């Protein structure tokens, strides 16, 4: 395996434009002959499928939900960044680029991130034209808010439902294409394997979740827009269905997996309430604009929050990071929350929580303004906890939220398998070791609207793939393997449910490969994961049949893949003997407890090649060259 990043030559500012102008084009008449399979219908998948169909390609789009509108991008709350400089506060493409590189703790590619910042402004134009109802000022112009990790106001938003509105924009563009017949939509269809013929991605195997039918789909290129893998922790802010299966199967068929250990733990989530908990709910980071985070100064404080006077409160982020304060980046805010809770100063049941207090903002701006900004978030909080944030400060605690790692892709977003692309959260490309708030929506839409539609043409024009028949023996063989796996899952007539295994895996991952990691813990976790995986195949009870709607079977397949993937995640975290961004190795920290990078030894992307189950994966390194930015220890003080 060879990593060829295909980063164009020339100065940073000119790379994308030059590359785009030099890209091979597909003759409009020939586009119709090319069939592209897009897996996933979130921001990246829906925007890509719609844009490719507009260009004239034949597109098939697959999602496991009952409608493409339900993809998990819909849950993003806070906003989307763009370097428009509408606020006249000194924002620029370079500044957005720099903030993103720095926020990612210098573990992402300069060229990709610069392109993302360049494209960001056009995304806002595109979404506005589609009718996305962004927040506006009284004069009718678009409004902005600020977000963690930056000092300018560049975030566009639609109340607390920005992801929903952006996704509906992309979904509507996709629906238009489905209506005209240029996109064939396959809802309730889950991709269970990738078919590679002569080194090129030529199709996928799916299971129809209603009938259970396992079928083959052939195409000229495959685009994976299947999101992230935070559900490896069981409890996360992801939707219940989010999974690693598509990218993991692609990995097993030859796609390198980059930085799997880079997972983001979001600082502002509602704490867990009991053993029955099925997921964790995020409270938008935008609350940190007006909210102040604190814990009592004393351990074992028993007074209710409003009785704790100012001098007994520790606004620890403001104390430790005077210039960024409550807007410190996510990784830092999360780690500090864990730290104060580990010191015994946490609040709420079990002491796993810190206060996010909007008291001062309510006093300053009035209840009406706060209700307008955060009303729906307050309601959600109250519904879940039974407490009113206007009366009692919210309690928050970090939770797994986003995964920066993903399939390795080159500048064209192609994986190490020719004709296989990964976009959105499914790839690793833009966020380094930590993603800044309001950047995921930006990246998903940049990939789907403005990058992939060009770069995929370059491949199709040069590779000129000939039509392949889904009756090709390779499809038969892999379809057989998928069917056999389903049969094995159903045949294991054990005693434990899939859910019980998933919870156990999640606990191991959270304890040993979560917010902070160390070598001994990671080794222990790898041993434990192996044992659990064997036990799973021996002792799981799935129930039901394969030829029907069987949600337990769907879950079983995903958990089986998480078991294989989890080991790679730990391997990556163990191998990377430094701390950077969200990857915090206890052995490598500064005296102030900040992440201590080791640029000399680890200034590269770790891309892992699958070598067989139970075999040590092969590490490939893509060195990261920094020409435009100066490598520095991140400081938000």
């Amino acid at each position, binding site marked *: 395996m060879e990593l060829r990043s295909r980063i164009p030559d020339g100065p940073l500012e000119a790379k994308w434009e030059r590359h785009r102008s030099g890209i091979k084009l597909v003759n409009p008449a020939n586009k119709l002959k090319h069939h592209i399979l897009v897996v996933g219908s979130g921001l990246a998948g829906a925007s890509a499928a719609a*844009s490719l169909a507009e260009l004239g390609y034949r597109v098939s789009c697959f999602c496991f939900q009952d409608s493409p509108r339900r993809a998990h991008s819909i849950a993003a709350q806070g906003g989307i960044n763009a370097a428009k400089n509408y606020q006249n506060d000194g924002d620029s493409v370079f500044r957005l680029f720099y903030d993103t590189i720095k926020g990612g703790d210098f573990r992402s590619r300069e060229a990709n991130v610069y392109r993302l910042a360049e494209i960001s402004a056009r995304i806002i134009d595109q979404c506005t034209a589609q009718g996305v109802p962004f927040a506006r000022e009284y004069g009718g112009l678009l409004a902005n808010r600020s977000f963690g990790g930056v000092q300018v106001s560049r975030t566009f938003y639609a109340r607390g439902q920005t992801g929903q509105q952006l996704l509906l924009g992309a979904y509507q563009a996709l629906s238009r294409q489905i209506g005209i017949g240029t996109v064939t939509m396959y809802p309730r269809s889950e991709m269970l394997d990738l078919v590679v013929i002569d080194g090129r991605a030529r199709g996928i195997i799916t299971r129809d979740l209603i009938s259970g039918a396992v079928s083959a789909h052939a195409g000229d290129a495959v685009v994976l827009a299947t999101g992230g893998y935070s559900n490896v922790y069981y409890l996360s802010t992801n939707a219940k269905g989010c999974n690693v299966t598509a990218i993991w199967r692609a990995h097993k068929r030859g796609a390198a997996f980059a930085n799997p250990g880079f997972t983001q733990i979001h600082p502002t989530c509602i704490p867990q309430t009991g053993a029955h908990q099925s997921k964790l709910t995020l409270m938008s980071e935008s609350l940190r604009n007006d909210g102040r985070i604190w814990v009592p100064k004393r351990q074992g404080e028993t007074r209710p929050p409003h009785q704790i006077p100012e001098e007994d409160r520790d606004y620890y982020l403001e104390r430790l990071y005077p210039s960024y304060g409550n807007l410190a980046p996510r990784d830092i805010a999360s780690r500090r929350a864990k730290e104060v809770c580990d010191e015994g100063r946490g609040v709420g049941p079990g002491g796993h929580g810190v206060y996010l207090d909007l008291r001062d903002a309510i006093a300053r701006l009035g209840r009406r303004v706060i209700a307008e900004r955060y009303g729906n978030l307050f309601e959600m909080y109250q519904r879940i906890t039974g407490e009113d944030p206007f009366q009692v400060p919210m309690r928050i605690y970090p939770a797994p939220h986003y995964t920066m790692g993903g399939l390795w892709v080159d500048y064209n977003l192609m994986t190490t398998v020719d004709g296989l692309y990964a976009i959105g959260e499914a790839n690793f490309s833009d966020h380094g070791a930590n993603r800044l708030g309001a950047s995921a929506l930006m990246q998903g839409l940049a990939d789907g609207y403005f990058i992939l539609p060009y770069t995929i043409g370059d491949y199709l024009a040069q590779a000129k793939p000939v039509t392949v028949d889904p009756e090709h023996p390779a499809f038969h063989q892999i379809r057989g393997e998928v069917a056999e796996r389903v049969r094995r899952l159903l045949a294991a007539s054990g005693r434990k449910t899939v859910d019980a295994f998933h919870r156990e895996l999640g606990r191991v991952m959270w304890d040993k490969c979560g917010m902070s990691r160390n070598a001994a813990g990671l080794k222990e976790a790898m041993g434990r994961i192996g044992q659990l995986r064997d036990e799973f195949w021996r002792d799981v009870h799935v129930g039901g049949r394969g030829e029907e709607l069987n949600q337990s079977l769907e879950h079983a397949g995903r958990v089986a893949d998480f078991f294989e993937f989890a080991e790679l995640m730990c391997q990556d975290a163990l191998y990377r003997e430094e701390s950077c961004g969200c990857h915090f190795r206890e052995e490598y920290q500064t005296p102030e407890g900040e992440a201590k990078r080791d640029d000399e030894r680890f200034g590269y992307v770790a891309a892992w090649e699958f070598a067989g189950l139970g075999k040590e994966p092969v590490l490939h390194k893509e060195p990261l060259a920094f020409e435009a930015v100066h490598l520095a220890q991140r400081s938000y003080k």
Partner: protein
Amino acid sequence: MRVTLHVWRQPGPELAGVFVRYDMTDVSPDMSFLEMLDVLNQQLLARQDDPIAFDHDCREGICGACGMVINGRPHGPRRATTTCQLHMRSFPDGAELWIEPWRARAFPVIKDLVVDRGAFDRIIQAGGFITARTGSAPEANSLLVPKADADLAMDAAACIGCGACVAACPNASAMLFVAAKVSHLGLLPQGQPERAARVVGMVAQMDAEGFGACSNHGECMAACPKEISIDFIARLNRDYLKAVVSHPSSVVRGDGGSNG
């Protein structure tokens, strides 16, 4: 706490369904309604029974996947709350709960509490969009939208497509769903060029799917977890009338554009 459930069990679309009784003990008031069903499903699996199938995904009230009728009310008793956001503390100890799928001809049952809401997607495909090819958009701030219009458009755009409005309506009408999209796009300047074709196309598809007519019961608004107002239905009716009267030739082309 303790609850008695009567859950609609239907093995498949063509098979008969029946209420099955389950007695639950040790239910925590902090559990969400779906977590309570998760616990029941774990128990059913442990005794080799078929777990209850129900749609769900984000579990934070935004994806629109979940939804069941609880004691006759879509999404249960709490105002502005999806089933996934409903917590057991909303019910008294010892409560008896009847749980059913959405019931509407246009939403056929697939299994247990899972229904097919593909009709909603087809209505959007028939015109619920603004045609804006990727790449051709003008600078965003070149278009001014009065804040009041943008806010009202956002109120309508908040629809999550769950289908509770249909389940609540005695006529199984989809008017609130259609009205929300017609209003969201029709309130914005970007939505004007296709305004007539959009409403005609979406209403035609709604009728073709077998949804009933609106007779102003208002049950839809009461059940809507996003509190979409039936004022939007008035707006839909006005837009529809205007389209068929003043644009009689606004037949919908395949791509939703207008010939008129």
